[in-house]
């Protein structure tokens, strides 16, 4: 277990590196996912088809393949960026499809009667959307969106496995292969690092869920 103590600053650095991947990908995937979700529920057919095409392609192919595309194919096309950026782009593009599905399921979960009732009492489109439909949709979205976010945090390890460097996975990989430390303590440290990210997030999310829960 000395490895953990001796290389503590390495682990902390890896932890922060992972958080950096996660933070950028979180923003990227939420923005992209929201745009895709808008496309998928819009009344304009081509936008809808693009959205559903994107989602079904991305959902059925592995994140690893997506990362192979962003990391190995994009540079081939003259898009040369640091590996970190390419990894974040891949993770965001992938997660966006799942964010889109979570948001869409939330909007679909609002009963038709709610919008009809809003129209019946004379609310305009934006009023009914803003104060009746969306507030309910957003609450329903919290649990599925939360699982998507947690899965994304775990997937950041795959970005690390691509050799981004400086995240938890690469710290573990370097200590065990290049420096030859015993794998068990090192990887336990890596695992604890990831749990330190996912478990508090899960706890926060379930708090939010409780707060916004509505009785149907």
């Amino acid at each position: 277990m000395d490895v953990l103590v001796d290389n503590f600053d390495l682990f902390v650095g890896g932890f922060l590196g992972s958080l950096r991947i996660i933070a950028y990908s979180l923003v990227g995937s939420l923005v992209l996912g929201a745009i895709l979700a808008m496309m998928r529920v819009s009344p304009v057919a081509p936008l809808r088809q693009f959205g559903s095409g994107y989602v079904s392609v991305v959902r059925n192919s592995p994140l690893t393949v997506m990362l192979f595309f962003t990391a190995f194919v994009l540079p081939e096309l003259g898009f040369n960026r640091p590996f970190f950026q390419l990894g974040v782009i891949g993770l965001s593009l992938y997660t966006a499809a799942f964010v889109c599905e979570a948001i869409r399921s939330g909007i679909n979960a609002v009963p038709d009667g709610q919008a009809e009732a809003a129209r019946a009492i004379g609310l305009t489109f934006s009023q009914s959307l803003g104060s009746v439909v969306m507030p309910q949709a957003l609450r329903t979205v919290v649990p599925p969106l939360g699982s998507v976010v947690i899965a994304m945090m775990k997937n950041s390890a795959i970005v690390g496995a691509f050799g981004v460097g400086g995240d938890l996975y690469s710290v573990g990989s370097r200590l065990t292969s290049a420096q030859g430390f015993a794998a068990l303590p090192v990887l336990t440290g890596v695992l604890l690092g990831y749990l330190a990210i996912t478990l508090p997030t899960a706890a926060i999310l379930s708090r939010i869920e409780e707060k916004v829960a509505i009785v149907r």
Partner: protein
Amino acid sequence: MSAPPSVLYDAPGPKALRRHRVIAVVSVLVFVLLAALAAVRLNSTGQFEADRWAPLYWPGDDSFPSVWNQIRIGIQNTLLAAALAIVFSLILGTVLTTLRLLLGRYSRLPLVLVAEVLRGAPVVILIFFAARVLPQFGVNLSQLWYLVIGLTAYNFVVIGEILRAGVAALPRGQREAGLAIGLTPRQAVLLIQMPQSFRLMLPALISQLVVIVKDTSLAAVVLIGPQELLNTGRRIEGFLDNPLQTYMLIAILYIIINSLLGRLAVFTEDRLSRARGQGSGDDDAAVPAGRSGADAPAGTT
């Protein structure tokens, strides 16, 4: 194609229809423009050259037979790893859920703890763990087995959760009726609750198989050697020097395999809901509630 019924907007009138048409035309133009820009970029980097594509689709090409032979082996190994992982996960997941149902609140705590740790860990780390830690304890297996072990370590917990959700969704009376006719609690779990949970959760279990198939590709970044589909693609691409074309083919193969599985999940869902006498004519049949709920957390990995 008309817009699906939505709570977000009314049926459009003539003015709105005109506006929608304008937006449709503009968005199609934008898509075409983007595709054209991409095509120009692809062309200028020589991606349309015939020798980058021919080995993948033209049977007369010299490399064609060996490329497709490798892909065949890759698909076999991917499916083999996925099949082994799902079988082990189902067995262990069933054991886990059964124990969780039978043990008391305190004696099941260690089990819950292990489950939570495995579920909170990235699969890729678990595969890495298996490949690095097991050899240090003298367990030397082929790389494919490390993949299977890593996948199983994560997925048996997920499957356990799915089965537990299935048991929780059963009417209370099922268990009570079992106990009333004199079954022991263990018999009630094994003979009444678990079998029904399997049946109820079959679509979610199939969806989890999609996740497992996708995750077999992690072998390509973590392990050295097992020739599953993605690693095969990597090898072919290294040989033919055409990453775009090869990875495109690999992606298409994954998409075919997984959408077939996805379709199977929807099909079983339909069959089950019809068997329960709910009919599949209602709107919910298109997006089965159980499936979309169950694969949301899992389907993302």
